[in-house]
């Protein structure tokens, strides 16, 4: 109807994998940087995992500096941050030797009640709960990865499972690296985002692998490298289309979905971009390591 579907030709023949070594280098550098960041800078753990108190307020005739001056004499570990606009401010407090939440929140409310028109939310996570949440999040991610690996292994040959997991770990590590470098808060919803990225990344990889498997049966004589290139090209327009529609939805969520959901949407956007890249440049070339046919052995 509009003819835009011809943007990606059906018989595209890009030699993606011929440049794979360049992309290996890029990915290895990116992953090493991510690992270094995670080791030395770490993640900006939110109160879900670190414990503490968080209060969101709408101020009246008071800016963030004045609010800080009011609060800082009373609390040791205090941080204030504008949240979306300059009238909405988030106050974060660390747990001080088992001080009860009720006392902390009440104290804050008392001090700034004159300057605030609305207390929008308050959250408190005690030290035992935060470590439990961290452990549960870790379990969720590990079990999900394991379950996905087992599924791929059952549905494909184990070599594919290996390739998928390499790509998956690549995506999760890079996304964590980006979160670390941009100092984005790591919360429960980040765990949800990471797992969804895992699902998306595998989804994307599986579609290409499906085609690789089909082509392996169909073209028995074709060189593996050409066969892989062909498979990527076969599925290229789908890969691009799905990335774009997902990104459209995510951008809409990022821009219009409100401040609370922003870090989640951002993490997902990074994940989708990285996941699309890795399906083509990491997952498929990993299969080259394995000899799929007897004639490939020399």
């Amino acid at each position, binding site marked *: *109807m*509009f003819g*835009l*579907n011809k*943007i990606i030709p*059906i018989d595209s023949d890009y030699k993606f994998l011929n440049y794979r070594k360049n992309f290996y280098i890029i990915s290895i550098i990116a992953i090493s940087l991510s690992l270094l960041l995670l080791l030395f800078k770490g993640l900006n753990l939110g109160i879900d995992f670190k414990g503490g108190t968080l209060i969101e307020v709408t101020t009246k005739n008071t800016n963030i500096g004045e609010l800080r001056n009011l609060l800082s004499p009373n609390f040791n570990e205090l941080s204030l941050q504008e949240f979306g606009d300059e009238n909405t401010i988030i106050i974060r407090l660390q747990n001080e030797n088992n001080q*009860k*939440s*009720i006392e902390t*929140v*009440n104290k804050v*409310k008392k001090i700034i009640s004159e300057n605030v028109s*609305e*207390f*929008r*939310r*308050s*959250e*408190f*996570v*005690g030290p035992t*709960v935060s470590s439990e949440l961290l452990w*549960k*999040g870790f*379990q*969720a991610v590990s*079990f999900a990865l394991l379950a*996905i690996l087992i*599924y791929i292994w059952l*549905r494909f040959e184990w070599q594919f499972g290996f390739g998928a997991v390499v790509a998956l770990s690549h995506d999760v590590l890079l996304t964590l690296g980006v979160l670390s470098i941009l100092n984005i808060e790591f919360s*429960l*919803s980040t*765990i*949800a985002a990471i*797992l*969804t990225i895992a*699902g*998306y990344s*595998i*989804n*994307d990889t*599986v*579609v290409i692998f*499906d085609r690789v498997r089909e082509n392996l049966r169909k073209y028995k004589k074709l060189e593996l490298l050409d066969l892989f290139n062909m498979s990527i090209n076969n599925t290229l327009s*789908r890969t691009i289309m*799905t990335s*774009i*529609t*997902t990104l459209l*939805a*995510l*951008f*809409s*969520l990022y821009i*219009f*979905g*409100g401040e*609370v*959901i922003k870090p*989640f949407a951002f993490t997902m956007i990074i994940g989708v971009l990285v996941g699309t890249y890795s399906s083509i440049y990491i997952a498929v070339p990993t299969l080259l390591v394995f000899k799929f046919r007897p004639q490939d052995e020399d």
Partner: protein
Amino acid sequence: MKNYPLWKIIIVILLVSAGVIFAIPSILYTEDSGNWYLDKRLNLGLDLQGGSYLLLEVQTDVLISEEFENFSDTIRIISRENRIKINNIEQKDNELKIRFDTSENLNEIRNSFLQNYRSVKFNINNKVAFISIDELYKKSIQDSAIKQSLEIVRKRIDESGTKEPLIQRSGKNRILLQLPGVKNPERIKDLLGKTAKLNFHMVDDEDSKSLSLNLAPFGKMIVTDINSEETKYLLEKKSRVGGENLIDAFASFDPTEGHAVSFRFDTTGAQKFGKATSENIGKRFAVVLDGVVITAPVINSAITGGSGIITGNFTSQEATDLAVLLRAGALPAPLEIVEERSVGPGLGADSIAAGKAASIIGMILVCVFMVLIYGSFGFIANISLIANLFIILSLLGAIGATLTLPGIAGIVLTIGIAVDANVLIFERIKEENVKNKKIFESIKKGFDRALSTILDANITTLIASLLLFVFGSGPIKGFSITLSLGVITSMFTALMLTNLLIYFYISFTSKKEINL
């Protein structure tokens, strides 16, 4: 179209119309109406409608140490009766270690002790006795404490006027509270933060030496005043009557002392109170609440009617709250708030508005893009997408799921991912169409070939999403529910609805070739 199986058409039409019909209440109505159909709508989570989520931990450790305290009191009494001197008593973990002056006659002490406490271990090693309790004993103490706490928390919340609270046990020693629409969580936390153990003790005003040394003799204890830490009282350790004998308490007003709480004892309580007051005219008794003295008036005459009044510089709110606490009864052990998430109604409303905006705009963007790329086929995919959203909403309403902010994120994400199955099918049809020119054959092959890919791709997403449900907590569960439902319904709409619509479209326009 002639060969299209009728049963498939019927199933698709039935499911899609059911989806639309049962999504309408969730889209249009937000209030309960009492109508069974209109009430089959989505519940909004606390983060969207505003309210408080509280996780309370019952401090059962306190009970265990109280139990050991009882042990050592009993031991002291028994050894006094048997004229055996105790050098010292220390408690370590689950064990009480008692050093006696002698190793003789300790067996008698053991026998009398075990008459009071049965399922306790009592070992003697020369001059030292060890009293320990096993895990089972400990667990039974904890279990009954949590059951009791649940009961009392429920009473207190009901008294506070909160509507539709959810109160349930969570894990070994926690209580989970969901209080929708609570505007002032601080008051609720205040109500829950007090154990509200009320006891009446006699004051010993004669022994001023012990008080000045701050050292209570056996059978006595030193308790501070609620208003000043400096003021201390020497009280009898054993209480004459306690809050468990109260049958009613209400806020009242005393002309000379201001806001007060009036109370009434049951028959046993009235008898005990009457006896204590008639025997001790001219002396003082202290009202002790949670380990501090609220008031310590002089007994002017015997109080035999079983009712009384507590004064103590209360504000009107404090008097009301104390009455609530006394009516609900004392908690067996203190509660500690270990997690709290309260959202005000303003933020909730903002989140709903933002979620709606993000869904609608995301939807429009995806729809426009699909039509731009796939033309009429894109239009068909959009119909499937919209049907898919209706079905998700109606399923969420039907299973009584709760929509949270992350849940909305899941829906928006589903909009993006749901077209994937359509895209996979269209791309396959496109390929088949190049190879063979028979239009219906290309469509059929396109769907067949795409099927296994669609299944593989979606099952992996489903695995990740279901594990999120199992291990996730609170709002994350909401995300995984909408995402899982979205994955399942999008497979259905793509494989069944899109399929049907394409056959319809091709048959009715009598197209000879596919413009994909």
